[in-house]
């Protein structure tokens, strides 16, 4: 009761982003007056990548007086002009530089899972923001698969609460994992999602509305969602959470410089001390290599580009790539199975309305031995727009006249998907390809192969959603196999032999080099990863800021207090 009265009223502490945003314009406020640092000025922290992890880390530490530069490869968005209510027109939001994919089950990248630009992949993520379950942090101990994290759910709990208030997350009270409530009320349920929900109930499967990082009501100067369904194309409304609206406004107000169009190509190591001394990057506008000095470096470029950057950072001490002496960089990259089933219904449904994420279930999240495989999956409604729907119809084997027929029937369909937990495997890995990008830096190659547990999980879950769609009264069904979400590649662990960074995201090899993005996660559960990535960065910032982690490598001079506060 009390929690319900407080819906929409519990404000986050220490983050003014929602008030800094402009009601009438979508540009990131403060870009014109943004603090600029000289490249030869040794800043306290240089962050590579202005995405989920990097933005939260920068915002938090800037509030503690750190002088921070974020190098971001992609553009500094001006959403009023750059973003459109259009699928094909949103191509520039994605990481479309070349990457090579291999293995028995190659994973398609680009628009499916990687963004490029200030705000990172969350600019065009769907918006589901579930927490990981406590079990996700100890799958090896509990279920004999995957890996145990060097931290537990309890270490992240307070940060989950804080980030949920910052996004803010809307949803029903959550009964699964560690039961919790959300700061905002659940959104209205669209006709399309209610069909799936009805089918699930008929199968005895409980579903709940949310959790989504989408404003329901108003939140500072951020308006209510207008139910336009273009969440994957960048929310022009500012209703959907991304670092661009949730953390970067506050970061800029506290002196962070976001240097866009700056592709990091090498973390530089001082061969004498073994510490990182800065980052070399390509200034895209001028086509020039530049070098930013820094006291601490945080790599936050996500699961493909973070390993690539480390592997490309060759030095005398690290001839096989930075932090790669034990051959761990790029290993244990994971995706989630994301099989999608669409059903056809007698009446018009028009699934393109409302946010694409609506209703979900974690009933099947935990291991149930009777199913014959370890770990589980979640169920989430989704709603492809026309091009997405055409790709679905194609994957189901139709083209030409049959394709046109199914497409004309678009308004009669509703779609549900799963997220399978797929297990961490050492050979599912990012390496360097033979090919180079336009700056001569080798591009990433990502090999991926499913294991038997993965296949069993995917087959079981496909049956479950097929059952839901049939029970909801579908007259025709189209099911396709696909994958979503990246995680891992620089995982945290307890020793350099099985991981790249420690529980404090500190690389084993270089004391002042940290990784703070999705690549540090040793497992992914069946939850979408963005909230967890932000919570992890929030925890790291707290530990760095309160000196629980020592980035000095033991040298006293480097322990000197961070440069004075530069709040404005």
């Amino acid at each position, binding site marked *: 009761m009390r929690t319900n009265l407080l819906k929409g009223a519990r404000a986050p502490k220490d983050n003014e982003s929602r008030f800094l945003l402009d009601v009438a314009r979508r540009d990131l406020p403060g870009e014109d007056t943004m603090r600029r640092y000289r490249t030869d000025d040794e800043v306290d922290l240089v962050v590579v990548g202005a995405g989920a992890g990097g933005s939260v880390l920068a915002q938090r530490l800037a509030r503690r007086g750190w002088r921070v530069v974020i190098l971001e490869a992609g553009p500094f968005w001006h959403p*009023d*002009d750059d973003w*459109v*209510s*259009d*699928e*094909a*027109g949103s191509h520039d939001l*994605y*990481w*479309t530089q*070349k*990457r*090579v*994919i*291999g293995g028995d089950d190659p994973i*398609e*990248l*680009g*628009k499916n899972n990687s963004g490029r630009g200030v705000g990172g992949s969350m600019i065009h993520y769907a918006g589901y923001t579930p927490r990981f379950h406590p079990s996700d942090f100890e799958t090896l101990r509990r279920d004999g698969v995957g890996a145990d994290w060097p931290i537990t759910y309890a270490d992240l709990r307070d940060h989950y609460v804080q980030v949920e208030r910052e996004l803010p997350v809307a949803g029903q009270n959550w009964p699964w994992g560690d039961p919790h409530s959300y700061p905002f009320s659940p959104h209205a349920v669209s*006709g*399309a999602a*209610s*069909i799936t929900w009805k089918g699930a109930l008929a199968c005895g499967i409980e579903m709940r509305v949310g959790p989504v990082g989408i404003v329901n009501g108003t939140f500072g100067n951020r308006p209510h969602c*207008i*139910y*336009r369904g*273009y969440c994957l194309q960048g929310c*022009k*409304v500012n209703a959907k959470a991304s670092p661009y609206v949730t953390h970067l406004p506050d970061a800029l107000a506290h002196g962070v410089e976001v240097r866009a169009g700056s592709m990091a190509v090498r973390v530089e190591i001082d061969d004498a001390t073994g510490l990182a001394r800065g980052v070399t990057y390509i200034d895209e506008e001028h086509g020039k290599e530049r070098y930013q000095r820094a006291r601490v470096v945080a790599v936050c470029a996500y699961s493909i580009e973070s390993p690539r950057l480390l592997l490309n950072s060759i030095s005398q001490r690290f001839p096989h790539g930075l932090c790669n002496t034990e051959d761990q960089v790029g290993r244990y990259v994971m995706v989630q199975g994301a099989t999608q089933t669409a059903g*056809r219904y007698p*009446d*018009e*449904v*028009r699934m*393109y*309305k*409302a946010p694409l994420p609506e209703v979900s279930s974690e009933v099947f999240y935990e291991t149930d031995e009777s199913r014959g495989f370890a770990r589980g999956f979640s169920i989430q409604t989704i709603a492809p*727009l*026309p*091009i997405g*729907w*055409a*790709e679905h119809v194609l994957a189901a*084997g139709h*083209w*030409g*006249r*049959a*394709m*046109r*027929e199914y*497409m*004309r029937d678009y*308004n*009669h369909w509703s779609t549900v998907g799963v997220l399978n937990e797929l297990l961490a495997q050492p050979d599912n890995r990012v390496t360097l390809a033979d090919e180079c990008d336009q700056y001569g830096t080798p591009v990433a190659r990502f*090999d991926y192969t499913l294991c038997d547990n993965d296949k069993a999980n995917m087959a079981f879950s496909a049956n479950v959603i097929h059952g839901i769609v049939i029970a909801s009264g579908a*007259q*025709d069904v*189209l099911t396709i196999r696909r994958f979503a979400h990246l995680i891992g590649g620089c995982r945290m662990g307890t020793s350099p032999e099985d991981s790249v960074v420690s529980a404090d995201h500190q690389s084993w090899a270089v004391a002042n080099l940290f990784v703070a993005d999705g690549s540090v996660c040793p497992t992914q559960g069946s939850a979408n990863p963005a909230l967890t990535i932000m919570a992890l960065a929030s925890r790291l910032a707290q530990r760095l800021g309160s000196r629980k982690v020592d980035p000095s490598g033991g040298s006293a001079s480097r322990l000197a207090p961070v440069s004075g506060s530069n709040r404005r």
Partner: protein
Amino acid sequence: MARDLSKPDHLPNLRPGREPPHSSWLPLQRRGTTPQMIGRYPDYDVFDAAGSWDDATAKVVNARLHMPADLHFFSAGEVATLRAFCDVCVAQDGEPRVPVVEMIDEKLAAGRLDGYQYADMPDDRDTWHVVLAGLDEVAEGRYGKATFAACDPDTQEAIVALLAKAQLSGGSWDSLNVKRAWSVCMRMILAAFYSHPWAWNEIGFGGPAYPQGYMRLGPMAVREPHEKPEATKEDPVSVISQDGT
């Protein structure tokens, strides 16, 4: 003869040979333009709401109506086969056509690719050249025609069916993974075709929705004022009176 749209009997999966019915069951388009002037929403035009689109979106969408006619990426020798191939893939057998070829050419010329390349595949740009060459080889080798474009429509469809099932080999086809080549081409063709507002008219998609947004999410009301009900080939008079016009 009007078909009951609450029934799914027009859907390929539920029909013999997974073949859709001939398009003659569809009503003639009365209002917005659709590809080949067929569709399920004869009185719908997504441009009726265009006044409410934001400028950036309107610019991107309108540009698709005015694609430059000259091609830069494909060579003159490839164009006929390219056109025939794209027509078959999305069944564009007459005017008005969505300018799929021009849209793909512009994208490839600008190097706007998808951001990944299968290890057993060439660059997407090379894939297109190989596929077009391979289609001509099949036309010649199996059907005795000089090019794919010179084959009759049924033959063209039969060849594309082989490509879709990855049942082509020899010559150009041995230089790539045929199954993936099909997906590379189709991804691009579909992204072009279904980004075009004429295709939105055909399928009744509401189109861009900013700053206005959608208000009728269902389950009770599903149509905004500018969205129109679907129809089959019935008497237009009854539809018009139903509409209150």
